[in-house]
């Protein structure tokens, strides 16, 4: 099957940071959340993929076409909303969209106007007079109006206050839920994407620590509490372990393994609780990648 994009051995080195070697692919119709703390390399990955930054090594394909900046037909399949929204600032939203329309044969003015209505955005104001939230909306319309098969979103709502962010995301998800397009959504706020994502890839310090489906994560991870008086024991498949006297609490990334071991040890009053996807993300990003990766 043709991937929406594939990244092979991507490396980008800066004086104090290295991204990769990174391997990542996205199947058509899949929504992949790309989660990691600030500075983990999320934007760099996207910058390399869309050609804003030249990678130091590796290969990138978009729908089987190399992302060659001199043969940019592959860009016709992409809608990209970056961490910054760039426009002709003195021009209205309408004029900015008209400028972009020239380059995309599939551009639909009707779709652009429809999206503006759904986003409740006036297209007559100059871009420089738009609020942060409205700039995001305009950037989203610009990315969607040519019906791209792959949507790349790089923390599009960063810098927005929570109310505006929720408003933008509500409409965005409404629009995206209708479609069949592949979406790659980079964010450090997991709640932004947890509603939409099929899969999550966790990036930390330039490396992917884990990629899993949302269902697998919520099925496997548990917070487990129990009573046990023994001292010298180490539980398998756990990322954190706290205790007060004989009362213990662990986070397990494979609760069946952990519960079985607790049963063998004779632990009492064992209780397991499901974790929210946000809590799981925190555990993954601060946990030992070797253990988690080997378990998944």
């Amino acid at each position, binding site marked *: 099957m043709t991937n929406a994009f594939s990244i092979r051995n991507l490396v980008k080195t800066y*004086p104090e940071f290295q991204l990769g070697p990174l391997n990542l692919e996205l199947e058509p119709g899949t929504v992949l959340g790309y989660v990691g703390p600030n500075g983990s390399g999320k934007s760099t990955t996207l*910058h390399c993929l*869309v*050609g*804003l*930054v*030249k990678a130091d090594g590796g290969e990138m394909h978009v729908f089987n076409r190399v992302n060659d*900046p*001199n*043969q*940019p*037909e592959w*860009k*016709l399949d992409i809608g*990209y909303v*970056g961490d*910054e929204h*760039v*426009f*002709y*600032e*003195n*021009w209205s939203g309408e004029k900015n969209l008209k*400028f*972009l329309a*020239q*380059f*995309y044969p599939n551009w639909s003015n009707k779709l652009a106007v429809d999206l503006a209505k759904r986003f409740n955005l006036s297209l007559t104001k100059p871009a420089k007079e738009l609020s942060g939230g409205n700039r995001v909306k305009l950037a989203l319309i610009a990315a969607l109006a040519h019906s791209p098969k792959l949507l790349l979103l790089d923390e599009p709502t960063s810098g927005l206050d929570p109310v505006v962010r929720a408003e933008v995301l509500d409409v965005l998800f409404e629009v995206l839920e209708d479609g069949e397009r592949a979406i790659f959504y980079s964010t450090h706020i997991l709640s932004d994407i947890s509603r939409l994502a099929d899969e999550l890839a966790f990036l930390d310090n330039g490396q992917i620590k884990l990629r899993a489906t949302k269902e697998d994560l919520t099925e496997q991870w548990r917070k487990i509490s129990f009573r046990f008086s023994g001292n010298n024991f180490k539980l398998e498949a756990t990322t954190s372990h706290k205790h007060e006297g004989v009362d213990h609490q662990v986070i397990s990334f494979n609760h069946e393994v952990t519960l079985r071991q607790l049963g063998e040890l004779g632990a009492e009053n064992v209780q397991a609780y499901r974790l929210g996807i946000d809590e799981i993300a925190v555990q993954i990003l601060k946990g030992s990648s070797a253990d988690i990766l080997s378990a998944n």
Partner: protein
Amino acid sequence: MWKILKTEIRYHKTVITAAYASGVVFLIVAVLSGILKRMDSPMATWSLMSVVTSAYIFLLIHIGSHDETEKRERLHALLPIPRLKLGIARMALLLLLQAGFSIIWVIGVMAAGKGLELAYLYYMLSSNAFFCLIVALIAIFLDLGHFGRNTYRRIFAGFGALFVILVIWLTLAGKIIPLLEYIFLPYTTPAGAAIFVSIAAGLFYLDVVIYTRRKSYLK
């Protein structure tokens, strides 16, 4: 490429019109007041050319600062246009704007009754090419800033510093005027015009190549 060019011209049309209008007004005044007629050699029109060029410089600063603030390169780099065409469009815009000023200058010179002398044409070509050469060097310096750790930019700036030291030394040694006379002697000849135009064209080409190989288009 034309779409980008047309868009840039349309976006900056107010300031472009104002800059050209100021050039036209100045030349009308120069022609009507007889200043131009009294200039008896192509080199003597240098001051006139400088005034028109000043309007061009203000225009370039205005467009350049807008492009920088609005991160135009980032916007354009995301479009489905080959990088080479983007690089050419950028330099073509500079060339077009300057060509517009050259036309104003030529009309002014012709209105003053000096248009039949080819020396004026060669002078115009040479001096325009010389200015293009300076603009291309600035563009190269700026583009070299997008290669990782600024190594190339430092080397380029190093050559610039050596050049300044050389000029100071020549000035102190009293050799700068003879050297400038020697350099600008061919200004009004076809060979001289061809040399200056070739150097400017070469540097424009070099900048397009550097632009297409930049490591970043984020700013």
